[in-house]
């Protein structure tokens, strides 16, 4: 590894996040901050404490941008895409981001202007479309652009193709892969493939950032358990165990971000949230000194 990756948090605007994370910020434990900027666009203003954090981490060159709603693989370009890119230009003129990432998949189509990100079949036209969308993202002013692997898959073909799809999407813009380990864990649980085997499918030399989070289980009508990337629970041991392995295999990783959805932390959860962060940090330190 070139240098130890920074370990930080995904910023949420809810008060429960602030309550749980404030001791970590105050102790100087949070080395890097990630902000899903398009979540903030629909609000008249951000809380002053969030603005202060964004300004501070931006000024330190430790602020990462992570879009949610661009919909890089929608079949057609709509006014939504143009409006999103215009807002991104404004965002990039206001704050200094080290890099900007988005999600693999699509979430707008027909009269749906938003949904959950869903996978897309790997075809030549879908690939060219996604490559062009990433070029536009870069041309909007993002210095480095990347995509995050998706947790959800309709079936095994999505699982098998996503790594190659991402590699070919990222190649023309020299983009980076944001490897979400909990998303790999979801596919591992749901399709019976080991996390390490799944990693083999991805362009690990392109990884600049890792995501780590918890999630939940749901049960289908047939009684099958499905792992979900809901960001509302403790980090599973299997995901923490995958961190050193991932860092060893992804030597260009610059940042490791712990995600937890705002509004999901009760006062009783706060200590566990901080413990997960500290354990993650210890795993990253351990990997750096291995």
């Amino acid at each position, binding site marked *: 590894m070139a240098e130890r990756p920074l370990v930080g948090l995904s910023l949420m605007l809810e008060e429960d996040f602030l309550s749980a994370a404030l001791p970590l910020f105050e102790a100087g434990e949070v080395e890097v901050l990630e902000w899903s900027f398009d979540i903030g666009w629909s609000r008249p203003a951000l809380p002053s404490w969030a603005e202060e954090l964004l300004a501070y981490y931006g000024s330190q060159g430790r602020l990462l941008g992570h879009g949610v709603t661009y919909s890089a693989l929608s079949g057609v370009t709509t006014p939504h895409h143009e409006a999103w890119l215009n807002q991104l230009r404004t965002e990039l003129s206001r704050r200094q981001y080290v890099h900007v990432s988005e999600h693999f998949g699509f979430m707008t189509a027909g009269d749906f202007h938003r949904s959950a990100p869903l996978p897309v079949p790997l075809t030549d036209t879908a690939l060219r479309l996604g490559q062009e969308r990433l070029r536009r993202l870069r041309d909007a002013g993002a210095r480095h652009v990347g995509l995050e692997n998706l947790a*959800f898959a309709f079936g095994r073909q999505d699982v098998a193709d996503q790594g190659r799809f991402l590699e070919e999407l990222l190649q023309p813009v020299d983009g980076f892969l944001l490897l979400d380990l909990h998303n790999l864990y979801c596919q591992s649980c749901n399709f019976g493939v080991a996390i390490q085997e799944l990693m083999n499918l991805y362009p690990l030399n392109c990884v600049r950032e890792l995501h780590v989070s918890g999630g939940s289980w749901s049960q289908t009508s047939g009684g099958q358990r499905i792992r979900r990337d809901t960001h509302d629970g403790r980090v599973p041991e299997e995901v923490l165990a995958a961190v050193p392995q991932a860092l060893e295999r992804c030597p260009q990783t610059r940042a490791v971000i712990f995600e937890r959805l705002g509004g999901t932390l009760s006062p009783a959860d706060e200590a566990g949230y901080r413990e997960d962060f500290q354990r993650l940090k210890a795993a990253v330190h351990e990997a750096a000194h291995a």
Partner: protein
Amino acid sequence: MPDDPALARFQATLLDLLSKGQQPQSIIDHLRSDRELADFAEYVATFEPRMLEVAIELVAKWGRREGGIPK
């Protein structure tokens, strides 16, 4: 921009079907029998009903339509 109208039609139909909360197998059957979506029939054949159940939940939770009432 090299738009892909066939992919767009597939995605719109898929989201619409998921939002209606139909049975997973009937969604698969619909997608596979729609002649306009013939290019995607092989892909749809790889869909697993248990994962479609999850997709239905995801769209119910996060889906927003133009002119729709915010959830």
